[in-house]
């Protein structure tokens, strides 16, 4: 086929620029919003997803991880006695106050762990080690929040919940959705920082013994340990994510913005492709008069839309990569995993081809007899 679609598209440079701007704007907006949604989603369930546990034991009616309610740590022994439980450890996550050197206070989320255990350890350590947490009052936090918490380096001493805390290491990229940074410490320190009694925990994490049946162990735990709920890790992760993203409305707002990006892109592309089609309407009429079936004309318009989609997507992704990389140093990460980048290509193609349907409707109604009118 002679390059009619390409030529029509590139003939009017200004219109091409408008079309591509619309697509790029749409691609970047959708990537940013979906990336934010993904970043938020990941942040909400970070602790759970990286726990390495198979089951989470909570008090009754705990809807998400930040809403844990303290219960007696004596249940730990009951849990360990259930067949199929390979390992069980106490865990504290609770909001408390971090006091900066300038006297200001910030909310932080204490994560109290058993340092000798493999579950719920801080990951992506860039400075210090897990063993360092064994030293008195030791805490590890993420380097993203240094400025927020007034931390400049390892060794500095602060106050958490009225108790002394010493920074012994930093992680990278462990974000908290609530903007209250996670502060990892020992279970004992966490009880102090979070003002819990010595016999209290907030969660018990369970790792199954090799070959144990998850559902069976869960059933047995519920039967043998009173006044608790037992969640599979993925289930508790979903509950937490759902709470933050949908019950609070935060995720809905981000998703709506992504949909708006799609709508804006669709309208801009539809409008410009429609205008291009109207500009060339006599040519399409001539094509039909020459004997071209509608499908041939549709192919020209679709090809135009597809070329615009490919160009717009490529430019949009270049901008998006800069935005995504830039966000890695901020509090809200924009994530763009490869499947999302691939999905965006098809979404862009769908948007442009869908927008071209408006023009196709116009072309379908062309009366080829128009070619005889002057």
């Amino acid at each position: 086929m002679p390059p009619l679609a390409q030529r029509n598209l590139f003939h009017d440079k200004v219109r091409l620029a408008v079309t591509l701007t619309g697509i790029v704007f749409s691609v970047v907006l959708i990537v940013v919003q979906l990336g934010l949604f993904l970043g938020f989603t990941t942040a909400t369930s970070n602790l759970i997803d990286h726990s390495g546990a198979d089951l989470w034991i909570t008090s009754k009616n705990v809807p998400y991880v930040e809403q844990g309610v303290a219960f007696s740590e004596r249940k730990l022994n009951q849990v360990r006695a259930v067949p199929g439980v390979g390992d069980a450890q106490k865990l504290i996550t609770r909001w408390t106050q971090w006091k900066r050197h300038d006297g200001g206070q910030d909310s932080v989320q204490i994560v109290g762990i058993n340092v000798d255990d493999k579950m719920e350890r801080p990951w992506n350590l860039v400075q210090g080690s897990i063993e360092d947490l064994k030293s008195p009052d030791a805490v590890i936090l993420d380097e993203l929040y240094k400025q927020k918490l007034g931390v400049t380096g390892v060794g500095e001493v602060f106050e958490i919940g009225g108790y002394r805390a010493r920074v012994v290491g930093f992680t990278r990229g462990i974000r908290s959705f609530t903007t209250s940074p996670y502060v990892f410490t020992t279970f004992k320190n966490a009880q102090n920082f979070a003002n819990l009694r010595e016999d209290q925990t907030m969660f018990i994490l369970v790792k199954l013994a090799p070959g144990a049946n998850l559902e069976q162990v869960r059933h047995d735990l519920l039967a043998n340990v009173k006044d608790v709920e037992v969640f599979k890790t993925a289930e508790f992760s979903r509950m937490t994510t759902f709470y933050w993203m949908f019950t609070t409305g935060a995720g809905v707002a981000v998703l709506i913005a992504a949909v708006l990006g799609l709508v804006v892109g669709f309208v801009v592309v539809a409008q410009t492709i429609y205008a291009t089609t109207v500009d060339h309407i006599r040519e399409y009429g001539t094509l039909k008069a020459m004997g071209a079936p509608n499908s041939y004309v549709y192919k020209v318009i679709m090809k135009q839309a597809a070329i615009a989609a490919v160009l717009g997507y490529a430019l949009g992704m270049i901008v998006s990569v800069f935005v995504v990389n830039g966000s890695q140093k901020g509090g809200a990460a924009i994530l763009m995993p490869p499947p999302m980048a691939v999905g965006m290509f098809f979404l862009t193609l769908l948007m442009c081809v869908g927008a071209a349907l408006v023009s196709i409707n116009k072309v379908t109604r062309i009366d080829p007899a128009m070619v005889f009118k002057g």
Partner: protein
Amino acid sequence: MQSAIAVRQLLKKYEEGTSGTLALRGVDVDVHPGELLMLMGPSGSGKTTLLSIMGCILTATSGSVRVAGREVVGLSEKQLPALRLEHIGFVFQGFNLFPTLTAGENVELMLDLKGASSSRAKLRAHELLEQVGLGEKYNAFPADLSGGQKQRVAIARALAGDPGIILADEPTAALDSHTGRTVMEMMTELAHKRGRAVVIVTHDSRVVNYADRIVRIEDGAIAGNTEAETVPPELLAQSLPQAAMGLA
């Protein structure tokens, strides 16, 4: 000899609200291979409507139209494009070239519609442009061609589908007299030397002498059907003032 186009008792009514306008009323015309027929008549007489129906672009209200031996009245809108593609080539007053395609690509487009491969289409487009004297203009865009050259490209495009019938709507109206003559000589050659049935709608009295037959239409009906040798001087004279007065 079988007619390339045979029109019988053709009626065309344009619906407008509850009433309608009768554009053609009982028209009978035959166009034979190797014949150049001119349709003449005042504006609004129905000649372009007749050309459109002969070209399978408009559908008739009633009557019979046989194109290349096939009855086209009653065919669906989906069947007509294939018939046009196979049997009919069009030449338009405004050339209707694709401005973003080169002269060669304009011709290739027709060949592509006919299913020719890209290499075959390029070769044939070169040949056709050579035939109309524009071999060296293959890569020129329409904007860089004169009116006469554009019309010759349009003729090459019409011929690309190797149609038995060429329908032209005012092909010389936008051309000066010299270029108009060149185009008409080309049309005559198509009819007389290549056996095409050529139908030309025109107001241009300068080209009447090229006709084998002139069919005059008035108020949607045939007012005259005259062989070239017997074209009366008054018919020629009738055309002149209309063209001169801008009634065309």
